[in-house]
């Protein structure tokens, strides 16, 4: 892999789309403003030039119709990829998603298929407010028949997107807006990253952190800090929210005996709840202390930077959770916390932290 293959997440997505489209004529993309100059934060850049408007369907502002049309096309052998600028716009199309897309295969006794991908972006920062910042993975993940993925790293973004497009099931791909700027090494060409479950991205023996999407980066940073004081943290990037394969998490918890989940969406009835419940059922005797769930607090996302300062989980909150869970030496932890707090203070609360640019 040549060095210059260091791409942003947005570039990786655009590359993944192009590879999948070049590979299979039945793949096309649909969305509002799909052909416009902003190109979904660069994630669809260059696609019209390469494939022409025939493969890039500009859609009216009508999400329920759009998803229904995509399902109908998918049932007829096409592989549409829908791009939504915000998760919230999908709320208008939930009936189509959970009844037609998710159940076409089941209710047809295995005859129909609805291979489509719906990309949904979670807004954060710069005053997005309560209706442009919801991360609703647990809602979609409640429905059998859907797959739900949240890649964190550019190579996964490309490879999992291609896998999603080639999958014969409807796949929801949720992208945190801030991840679009994250960099990492990305393989060339058409490759698949299977939608098979979590990845351990940092090994450790004292505590297991399970996180999704952007929160994985916060967990990584917390792990880095904690390592400085000899606390060995295992970080698991969940990747696939449904179907849920928690074996790697169980294995990790059996080793560490301690679990902290870090949700992108609300905690109550969230992803962490499912993980903690499954761990409690499956690794009960390995747990040395009660598990902990972190995530945004139980209220809508306010717009003002004055109000969101404490809203999202971050390295500091994760370090504190681990301190509590492992009953770490408060003196030692204070140093880390001071450093982390000081560092975070230098940065605006409402734009992506440059630390997270990577490359990862």
């Amino acid at each position, binding site marked *: 892999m040549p060095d210059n293959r260091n791409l942003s997440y947005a570039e990786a997505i655009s590359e993944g789309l192009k590879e999948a489209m070049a590979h299979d004529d039945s793949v*096309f993309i649909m969305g509002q403003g799909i052909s416009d100059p902003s190109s979904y934060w660069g994630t669809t850049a260059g696609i019209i030039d390469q494939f022409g408007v*025939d493969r890039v369907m500009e*859609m*009216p502002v*009508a999400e*329920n*119709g*759009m*998803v*229904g*049309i*995509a*399902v*109908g*096309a*998918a*049932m*007829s*052998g*096409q592989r549409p990829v829908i791009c939504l600028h915000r998760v919230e716009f999908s709320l208008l199309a939930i*009936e*189509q998603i959970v*009844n*037609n897309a998710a159940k*076409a*295969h*089941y*209710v*047809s*006794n*295995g*005859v*129909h*298929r609805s*291979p489509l991908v719906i990309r949904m972006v979670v807004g954060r920062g710069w005053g997005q407010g309560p209706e442009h910042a919801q991360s609703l993975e647990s809602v979609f993940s409640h429905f*059998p*028949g859907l*797959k739900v993925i949240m890649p964190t790293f550019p190579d996964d973004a490309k490879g999992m997107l291609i896998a999603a497009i080639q999958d*014969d*099931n409807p796949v929801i791909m949720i992208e945190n807006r801030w991840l679009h700027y994250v960099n990492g090494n990305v393989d060339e060409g058409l490759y698949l990253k299977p939608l098979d479950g979590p990845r351990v991205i940092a090994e450790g023996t004292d505590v297991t952190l399970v996180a999704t999407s952007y929160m994985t980066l916060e967990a990584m940073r917390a792990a880095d800090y904690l390592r400085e004081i000899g606390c060995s943290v295992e970080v698991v990037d969940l990747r696939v929210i449904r*179907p849920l394969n928690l074996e790697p998490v169980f294995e990790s918890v059996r080793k560490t005996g301690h679990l902290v989940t870090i949700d992108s969406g609300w905690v109550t009835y969230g992803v962490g709840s499912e993980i903690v419940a499954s761990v409690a059922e499956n690794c009960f005797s390995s747990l040395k202390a009660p598990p902990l769930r972190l995530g945004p607090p139980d209220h809508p996302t306010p717009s003002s930077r004055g109000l969101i300062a404490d809203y999202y989980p971050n390295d500091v909150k994760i370090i504190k959770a681990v301190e509590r869970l492992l009953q770490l030496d408060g003196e030692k932890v204070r140093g880390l916390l001071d450093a982390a707090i000081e560092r975070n203070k230098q940065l605006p609360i409402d734009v992506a932290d440059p630390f997270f640019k990577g490359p990862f």
Partner: protein
Amino acid sequence: MLETSLSEQAEMLREMLRIRLVEEAIVDRYGENEMRCPVHLSIGQEGVAVGVSAALRREDKVFSTHRAHAHYLAKGGSLKKMLAEIYGKAEGCVGGRGGSMHLMDPDEGFVAGIPIVSSGIPLAVGSALADKRTRKDNVTVTFFGDASVEEGVFHESMNFAALHKLPVLFVCEQNLYSVYTPLRERQPDRPLSDLARGHAMNILSGNGNDVEEVYALSTEAVEKARNGDGPSFLLFDTYRWREHCGPNYDNHLGYRSEQEFQEWRALCPVENYRNKLLASKCLQPGQEETWAAEIDAEISEAFEFARSAPLPDIESASLFTYA
């Protein structure tokens, strides 16, 4: 108006008769409590299903609603598999997974019955989009009732189909009611077809109980669609004779008048067409009786098949959650 050949006329009458007899056979047997799912019968509305389907090829595709029996049969769906499905049997067209509200026989172009009001409409548009993208000259039909036009997704679908001149027919069976609620309590007073004008759509309206008129208008719309000249909205007036869901008459409930029912009853699509063909000597006396006997035999055999078929294996319930 289109010339209809003798054999086409006969075919249409026979098919209407067949659908009527199937539905009445369901009525007769529903009380046995062996068909354990909701059924929405099409008795009285056979003209639309048969007239539209007569204008279609086998490869053309149809989407329908909760009230799908007539559309399914007219498009060539297997009677045995339909009844087995209503009986919840393994041999049902979807193996007992859906019941009457989820019929399908894609080999015959009957893609799916979708029981959520209007939810099948965008699927039909997507099917037409797929055909256009792959340069197939199929036409897709979406059948729906007069309440469907109240759902937003109907409009979203019409707008998109009109914008891209997709080969799709929006066929509205205007039977005056949504369950027990009359049209006037749900929509302002204006021709329902004005909705389609808003989407710059070709509009054809007719008597849904006159199968030849339905056929003629559908043929016009199908040709237009197949030639790349875009979608049409077809509005057919008709009437459901029995209760919304289930086998009974329910005029005694008072939500519609006996007089209204009798007026529509007199416009029976089967009876009137038979009389017309007899009067014009296009139908031989006795022919209908012969058909009825053949159809009765087919129906008996199909019920026998459905009744005696095994229930699906309980283990199979979890199959096909994912492809």
